[in-house]
């Protein structure tokens, strides 16, 4: 990190270039992270979007983006990024596009696409060593359709298709990416802007497949007051359920090791998706299970 220019909050971009007043939900943790990321990425970008909450950002004839945007389909943001990157390379090679007018190609997808339907296309793009930045906003469910469970939904969470609590186990998308040996992969959260900015700055400087996996606290899907998005995000980091880490040159580094970790139930009980674990009576076994999973994760962190 030493080579980065972002050392403190004072180094974060002062100009905010992503337009406000979009149709997204108040307190959207994904949009909060995207604001911070887009300020760093700048205008010389083309965002390839997969079906999800962020699709509602560009509604004809308005867009909050100063750079370019292409909506594709739920499964193929990475493939769209491939087509655009290849086309830009062809244009540059033919002298039809000056190098200084090149664009950074970004795939923007939610967890529904990133952990599920779009995973095959993304895996293939990493394998082809595509030069692109993949941003996943992970709100742990199919948020745009009203929060049904996805492959990113944590065990025990209530969604509209798992009223009694989700039985599946959240996929480890970061590890799946890392297993492809990409040039860079990192987890971030909007509630930790300095950590986020350092990672995005690093990702921008590298060439090849890069992942920014942003946990996206979701007031409507998770059930909390929109003003608590930052607080929920901080709790997710402090309890250890959302580890902040990066993968680079084959090495995994945790950029924040919460010490001491607060009990995970402090994070859980703030959200109505976990309320059934506390009311009408406390489900001590389930809470202990979630805590044990978190503890197990950190026991493996050197």
């Amino acid at each position, binding site marked *: 990190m030493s080579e980065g220019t972002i050392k403190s909050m004072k180094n974060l971009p002062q100009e905010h270039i992503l337009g406000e007043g979009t149709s997204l939900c108040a307190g959207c943790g994904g949009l909060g992270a995207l604001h911070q990321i887009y300020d760093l990425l700048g205008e010389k970008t083309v965002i390839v979007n997969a079906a999800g909450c962020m699709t509602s950002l*560009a*509604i*004809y004839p308005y867009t909050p983006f100063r750079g370019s945007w*292409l909506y*594709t389909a739920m499964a*193929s943001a990475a493939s769209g990024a491939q087509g*655009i990157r290849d*086309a830009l390379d062809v244009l540059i090679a033919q002298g039809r596009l000056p190098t200084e007018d090149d664009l950074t190609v970004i795939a923007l997808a939610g967890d529904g696409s990133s952990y599920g339907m779009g995973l*095959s296309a993304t895996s293939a793009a990493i394998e082809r060593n595509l030069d692109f930045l993949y941003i996943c906003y992970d709100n742990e469910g199919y948020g745009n359709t009203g929060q049904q469970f996805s492959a990113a939904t944590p065990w025990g969470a209530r969604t509209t298709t798992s009223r009694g609590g989700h039985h599946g186990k959240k996929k480890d998308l970061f590890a799946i990416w890392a297993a492809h040996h990409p040039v860079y992969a990192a987890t971030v959260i909007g509630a930790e802007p300095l950590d986020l900015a350092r990672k995005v700055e690093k990702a921008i400087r590298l060439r090849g497949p890069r992942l920014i996996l942003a946990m996206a606290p979701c007031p409507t899907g998770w059930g909390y007051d929109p003003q608590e998005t930052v607080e929920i995000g901080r709790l997710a980091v402090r309890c250890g359920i959302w580890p902040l880490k990066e993968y680079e040159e084959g090495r995994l580094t945790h950029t924040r090791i919460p010490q001491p970790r607060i009990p995970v139930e402090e994070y859980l009980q703030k959200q109505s998706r976990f309320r059934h674990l506390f009311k009408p009576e406390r489900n001590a076994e389930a809470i202990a299970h979630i805590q044990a999973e978190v503890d197990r994760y950190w026991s493996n962190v050197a």
Partner: protein
Amino acid sequence: MRRTLLTGNGAAAWGARLAEADYVPAFPITPQTEIIEALAGWSERGEMAGRVVTLDSEHSMLTAAAAAAATGVRVFTATSSQGLLYGMEMIYTAPGWRAPFVMVNVSRALASPITLEADHNDILAARDSGFLQIHCATCQEVLDSVLMAYRLAEHPQVRLPAIVNLDGFYLSFTREPVVIPDQEQVRRFLPPFDPGNVAFRADRPASQAALVLGGSLYSYFRYEAHLATLQALTAYEEVAQAFEREMGRRYPAVEAYRAEDAEYIFFLMGAYATKAKDAVNRLRERGMRIGVVRPRLLRPYPARILQELLRGRRAVAVIDQNLSMGMGGILYSELASALYGMKDAPMLVSYIGGLGGRDISTEELFTMAAQTREAADAGVTPEPRLLYTAAELREVRKMQTIAGSKLPGHMEGKNDE
């Protein structure tokens, strides 16, 4: 210009090479694979400047194709059958981007049951997508149609992706003499792709394919695409004339063979038209005034041309190499709709045949001609017929006996030859 033997797949690859496609996203599928193998080989050896990238699926391939076209390069791609269906979400999505590119589809029948040989249900599933469609009957036509498709797709009044279709096996793997035009000749016919204002540039940020709210805006964009597709009818004539001037070969939107004085017409598309022409030659020797009408352009639908060509005929045998379950032949219903209410409209007699590469024999064509004449004489339109012989059915029953299966059958008594 040189003359050589090429398969339909070889001709398609040559079309892409001569069009100087910048970018070829690819994915293998039988019987199309030879096209992308040829292009990958040329690209690897530096004989073709275009970049070939193998994607992970047809869905990805079509997304990459449309995204690259929307970035302003000339794109070629190819698929077939199940691959076309796997990419179908993007087949329907891409035309709305108004970023032209050309895809070759090598027709192959659809599962189930899974098979390899040709019929047209795959390409007809893309019928309502907004892609232009050109259907070929010879290998020369495949090469020429790829070149024409680029000029048509990129026409400023059109700007839509185009599919050039050829039949698996019957064309894809059949060698025919093909004239390969010189690069300079092709350049005179097909100028470099001008992306216009559809491209992503640092100084001209653009939002493409954004969400619309409400039916009014949605309808606006759908109507625009429809009207652009209709413009392709006029643009096609312009392209065909320019092609003839440069190459000396004429490809009308609808081919009419020995049809000037014909009382009866075989109406079909694709490679079996060659067999129908042969049958026509023989039937004419026996004194029957019969011809072939073959739409090359299926989208946009050349309704007016078909009305003019078919007005005043006694009857038309429509041979559909496809089957819309529970309805019948797709070409038949489209033609009926184009001719409905027209004065002196011919009787239409519907046949389904050639599914999964099943042969349509010359004898069957003779039978269809005779039945069509009888129907016209009687003035009664017969029920649609499924081409199948009693001998074939006996063979199937024999196999079922060997397999020990006792599936309830519906076909006994349905076929009359």
